[in-house]
């Protein structure tokens, strides 16, 4: 069977108590006393149809809470050889640095024990909190020793743009360990999800994720992250990508006249993206017509940018065909295997 790597799936933490085995007694008791029972954020409310595809929604509780369920519902039906687990339990919303660190380390240890140790096809991203950068780097260093952690994970909705230099120690650690920086849809809830403030509906929140991604990419480009860290890979997860050509045209157009603001930018935004930025396949916000999709893929300008993903258990498509019309077989092969393997150097290593 040909190699296929699912670059974005979401094991769910059932509740805080499920993490208690991975915390000290002090923090277990603090969680109980403070009534911290769940950190499911409004990024993915349990009851929203998008959060769980109907055929994957369990009778009670959350989907994808065990390695067995993931194997049965995702790996085997889609024929994936490997899958990267991106846990979206809302630990990034915590403000207390110590509490955030406690929950981040618990999530990563839970991931290792409950998923990575139970299915050799699973890999995972290192979840970090950006409340304290030194602690984030400590957590990266701690987890990176396990080669099944293949990426660092942050949310698109950060308190400040990710290009800012205070975040750079994280990128330094990423490069040191050969870990791409994964930026996933969702927010730390430090800012409203739109540039216009707080919207009324979940539809608006989810659509606005694309704005956050566009701004993060613009920030990483302008602040010089790609110049400072030319080997860093950034992966936009569940970001959508059909907006990319328009964003690149827009940045390039105004960069021509504002070059002197960012004189370190020595490559065009399109070159930088081709060299250092990747996008998960799903969701595809594209035209239904195959010929129009082909034209869109031409505008994307490289066959290396997309990484296969189902976004399991989120509901992005029906049935078992992950690719929409318009992708030819050779491109599908690159998206399924070549591009993920080139993006995540640790994937090519055997199971430890």
């Amino acid at each position, binding site marked *: 069977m040909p190699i296929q790597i699912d670059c974005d799936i979401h094991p769910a933490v059932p509740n805080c108590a499920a993490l208690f085995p991975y915390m000290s007694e002090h923090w277990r008791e603090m969680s109980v006393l403070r009534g911290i029972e769940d950190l499911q954020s409004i990024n993915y409310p349990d009851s929203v149809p998008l959060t769980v595809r109907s055929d994957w929604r369990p009778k009670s509780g959350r989907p994808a809470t065990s390695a067995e369920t993931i194997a049965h519902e995702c790996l085997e039906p889609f024929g994936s050889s490997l899958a990267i687990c991106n846990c979206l339990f809302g630990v990034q919303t915590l403000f207390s640095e110590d509490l955030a660190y406690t929950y981040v380390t618990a999530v990563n240890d839970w991931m290792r024990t409950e998923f990575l140790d139970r299915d050799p096809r699973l890999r995972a991203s290192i979840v970090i909190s950006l409340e304290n950068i030194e602690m984030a780097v400590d957590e990266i260093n701690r987890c990176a020793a396990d080669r099944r952690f293949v990426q660092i994970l942050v949310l698109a909705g950060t308190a400040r743009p990710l290009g800012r230099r205070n975040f750079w120690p994280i990128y330094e650690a990423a490069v040191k360990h050969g870990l791409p920086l994964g930026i996933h849809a969702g927010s730390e809830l430090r800012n409203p999800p739109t540039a216009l403030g707080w919207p009324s509906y979940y539809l608006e929140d989810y659509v606005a994720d694309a704005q956050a991604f566009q701004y993060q990419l613009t920030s990483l480009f302008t602040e010089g992250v790609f110049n400072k860290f030319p080997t860093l890979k950034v992966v936009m997860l569940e970001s959508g990508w059909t907006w990319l050509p328009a964003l690149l045209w827009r940045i390039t157009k105004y960069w021509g006249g*504002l*070059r002197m603001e960012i004189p370190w930018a020595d*490559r065009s935004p399109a070159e930088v993206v081709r060299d250092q930025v990747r996008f998960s396949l799903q969701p595809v916000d594209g035209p239904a017509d195959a010929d129009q999709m082909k034209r869109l893929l031409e505008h994307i300008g490289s066959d290396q940018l997309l990484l296969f993903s189902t976004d399991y258990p989120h509901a992005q498509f029906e049935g078992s065909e992950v690719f929409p019309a318009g992708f030819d077989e050779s491109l599908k092969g690159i998206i399924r295997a070549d591009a993920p393997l080139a993006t995540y150097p640790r994937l090519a290593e055997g199971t430890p």
Partner: protein
Amino acid sequence: MSVAKYVIAATADFPAGTRRLVEVDGRAIVVFNVRGEYFALLNRCPHNGGSLAEGVVTGLVQSAAPGAYQYTRQGEIIRCPWHGWEFDIKTGKSFCSAIRARARPFPVHVEDGGALVEGPYRAETIPVHIEDAYVVLEA
């Protein structure tokens, strides 16, 4: 089109740090005095045709790393007033890889009045005196 010599001004009337917009043979050309050296560009930004003569003259900002700024060549860069594209006054070249176009340069030099009066040259409005020096544009 044959190249002709046009007398733009007496050097005494065209001091350093200033520029002049002239029209020769139906073409608008902007001539700059950069610290005593003269340079000329077609007064038409290769982007959308903005008048470079109305742009800001500035220096060149370069960088070896994010946060590091090296500012050199003050007075040698013209920014188009329309979209801010920068061009090297001396060569017409741009500094941004998003910009592949180049502003068109023309040769300019200084010539003594004594040599000029032997001609041929065109200076319909500028009287040429043997004892003075003149800015001569070839276009």
